[in-house]
């Protein structure tokens, strides 16, 4: 089943992306993707408002984190969806936060059920005070390999920029 979804994503989705190209953000821009990308809407960068991200897909990831108490319900999209939306061609990503925190994420983390970009926590849109508006989380509970320091450093909250490095 998962393979079929993957096939669908790999074959159909990019075609759809190309066909639609990237629309312009109408609301507040929450994420700017730059670097080695093929699709852009603002002179080589791709800017997303919340609605655009929500249009890319809306799924849930339930997991606990070391920064919160108990299981949390994250709502958002797989990182992979964003990369595909922008036609990312690199091998590494540089994820940056509002306070200029920066972490390097290998593109290989962007797999279905892998790195996840959340915009709601427990059904509420995350504000800056709640590590919002975007937070890269991993399914920590599903796989012990996600409970490592490297993964924790990649769990960038208050995310607002992604640079795709070739």
């Amino acid at each position, binding site marked *: 089943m998962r393979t079929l979804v993957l096939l669908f994503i790999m074959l159909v989705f990019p075609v759809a992306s190309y066909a639609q190209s990237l629309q312009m953000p109408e609301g507040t821009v929450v994420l700017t993707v730059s670097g080695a990308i093929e699709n852009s809407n603002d002179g080589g960068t791709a800017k997303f408002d919340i609605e655009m991200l929500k249009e890319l897909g809306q799924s849930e990831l339930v997991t606990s984190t070391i920064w919160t108490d108990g299981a949390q319900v994250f709502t958002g999209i797989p990182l992979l969806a964003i990369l595909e939306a922008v036609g990312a061609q690199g091998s590494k990503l540089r994820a940056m936060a509002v*306070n200029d925190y920066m972490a390097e994420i290998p593109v290989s983390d962007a797999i279905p059920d892998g790195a996840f970009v959340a915009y709601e926590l427990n059904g509420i849109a995350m504000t800056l005070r709640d590590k919002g508006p975007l937070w890269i989380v991993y399914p920590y509970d599903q796989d012990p390999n996600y409970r490592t320091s490297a993964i*924790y450093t990649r769990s960038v909250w208050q995310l607002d920029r992604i640079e795709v490095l070739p």
Partner: protein
Amino acid sequence: MVAEPNTAEHQTSRPGKSFARLIPRIASRYWVALALMFSLTSIVLLSSQLHDRFRSLDNSNSGSVAWTWSQMDTELAQFNIELLNAKLKPDAPLSTLRNRYDIFFSRVETVLGVDAYRNMFSDPGMGANIARLQSFFEETLPIIDGPDEELRASLPYLETQVAVARTVVRALTIRGIANAAKAADQVRTEVSDLLLELAAFALALIVALSGLTMLLDYLYNTSKSRALAIRQTRDRLETIGRISLDAIFVLDLDGKVIDINRAGQEAFDTRRSAAIGRDFSDLSGVPDRICAGSNRRIRTTAQRPNGEMYPVELSISDAAGEKNPVVAVFLRDISDRVEAERALLRARDDALVGERSKAQFLAVMSHEMRTPLNGILGTIELMRDEPLSDQQQGYMKAMETSGKLLLHHVNDVLEISHHESGQARLNPTIFNLEALLKELVDSQQALVRPKGVNIRIVHIPGVLESAPVELVETDQMKLRQVLLNLLSNAVKYTDKGTITIEVEPISLDGDNLMVEIRVIDTGKGIEDDDLDRVFDDFVTLDVSYGRANGGTGLGLGIARRLAESLGGEIGAESVPGEGSLFWLHVPLVRILAPEGQGSGMPARDAKGEAPPNTPQSIRILIIEDNDINRFVLREMLNQYGHHIDEAIDGAKGLSLASEERYDLIFMDISMPQLDGVHATRKIREAGASSGAHIVALTAHAMPDELISFRKAGADGCLIKPITRADLAGVLTRVAAKLRQERQSAKPAPLANSRLLSELVSELGNEQSAALIRRFIGEADAAVGQIKSLAKDDPAGLRDLFHKIGGSAATFGAQRWLEKLRKCETLFEAQITDSANPCFKEVFALWVETRRTYEIVLHSIETAEQRPDPAI
């Protein structure tokens, strides 16, 4: 062929020792497996432990704590900068300021809202500051979230609040980092411990694996060499099994065949596969039950496939000590051997039969030859007493020599047949040893004189006070032959120098004398190796040695047998090149020469010397049917001057002997009608000559006959031809016997002085004297009663004799006692005629005895008066 490898396997896979070796092998395998399992378990446990530890390290995320703390300080500083910016630029939007505030807020929330940091609240230094930080947010949140104008107006206030918050955050950060460092240290220690543990496990694992490797290596080498050894053994056994000519079976304990070799398959016309599992007895036809428990070799039979039975030898050995005991049976066809044994037995039996007939033939021949020889030699002896010319004397000598030689041959042959039938009998006679030696020496003089060799006889007194030894009693013929054989050898092998015959009595027990006679030559000697063999029969190491005696080929062998049959021993010593010494130990009975006869009898060949003196006339009866022999014997005896009667057959001889008392009877054995054996028996049974010395005369020399003579009552036996020396021996013996009989009537003392002196010493003089006096009185009374009792009361007389005899014995009146006993005996036998003269003798002897006892009595009484005889 197909069977062989398996056969070998059966035999090699179950040797006793390898099983014992198997036990440690299994045990070591067990330990190896155990060690491996332990190692593997350790590895797995260690891995999982390490994995868990590292995972928990990741979870704790302690490494990022310092970052989080410092970041809080940084975010507050950023907010402070934005605050200053907002003051400087009153028109600029306040969104950046608010974002910075939110970032700081979220940072603090992160720190304060998570388990990893919450334990810090218990730190009293931190709790107050955290409370201050919380009050900071309570003060500022409404302002930040309020309208821009109020925010802008509150900027200075916020500035003062931030200044306070910065000191608080600073303190928290420093404390938090310090705590984090402490936690990191702890983690580091934990990791270090874990690594140490890991190292220890790794080391243990390495050691265990090294040990394991060494063990495996050892086991490998051991098993390799063992496998090689087993293989070699198996190959060898395989080869043995294959090439063995004997059938080899391996059986279980029930006698079922486990394996069989090729020879076995061929012998019983079977295949290995068919033979296995069959009962051994069914297969082989061996009737015996083969069972384990004893290794043995049995002779039995087996059956060929065609039904023929044949003899086999089974060699059975079992390996009972093992887990799977088997019995190995080697079956060998011994038909040939059994056949050979049968043939040997037949040959032996045939040979024995042949030997017997030979002995019979020899005995008959010897008899047939001796009879005419008897006549020839006897006549020659008589002729020598006749006046003859020198020439005639020479002829006579030649005839005699030839005759004697012939006689020797006959004797030799007869001797062999005697000895071979194991029936050599002694025929003891009395003869003069010195004379015998001289005769032997003389007989050899003709041979040694041309060589210039001297023969001398040396007498050594030895245990006797005087030499030489003269009259002795033993089997003269045998002794002569032994000595002749020894001397002949010496003569034959001595070409120069001297032959010495030494005679030395070496022990004396009563009249039993052991004499050593040594024949010492200066000849070529005998090698040591041959020395022990020269006395063996038919020894051919030096043919001439063995044949030295008269050409019968048995010289020293006969000498040894003769010496042994005489009760003696023979031996030899030699130094090759210097000479030999043959010694003979022979037991003799010494006959003391009669008084006045110092030198005994003269040598037989000493012609013309006086005939032997005999102290008194002997009454002789010759019973002989052969005229010539009787004549010769009589002529010989005549010289001694004894009274001689003749009888021409057994019946006449018997009647003469019963009428007249003869001292000596010569009895020919083979006579028609009443033969010598029967006549002897009759003479012994009754008649005047029942006590005579009877000498059998025979040409039969067979031992059986000699025994029958003895049984019939003959005292001795002379083998024809009879020589003067033989006769002299007999006469001397008879004379000695007669003299002894005569002496034996007198020797008993009238009074036994020893007995009397004992009596005196025990009872004292007075009492002894009284007792003796009483004895004399009793005896006087008894003697007075004899005459009357003899007529009226024979029984009373016997009692009287008995009673007085008892007293005579007590007081040592021995001669009288003997007479009393004799009378008593006669009386009991109711020979009253003889008893009467006996009474007279009793009277006469009592007179003598009484006189003696009166003297004894007198001496005792005299001693009584002188109580101290020593003075």
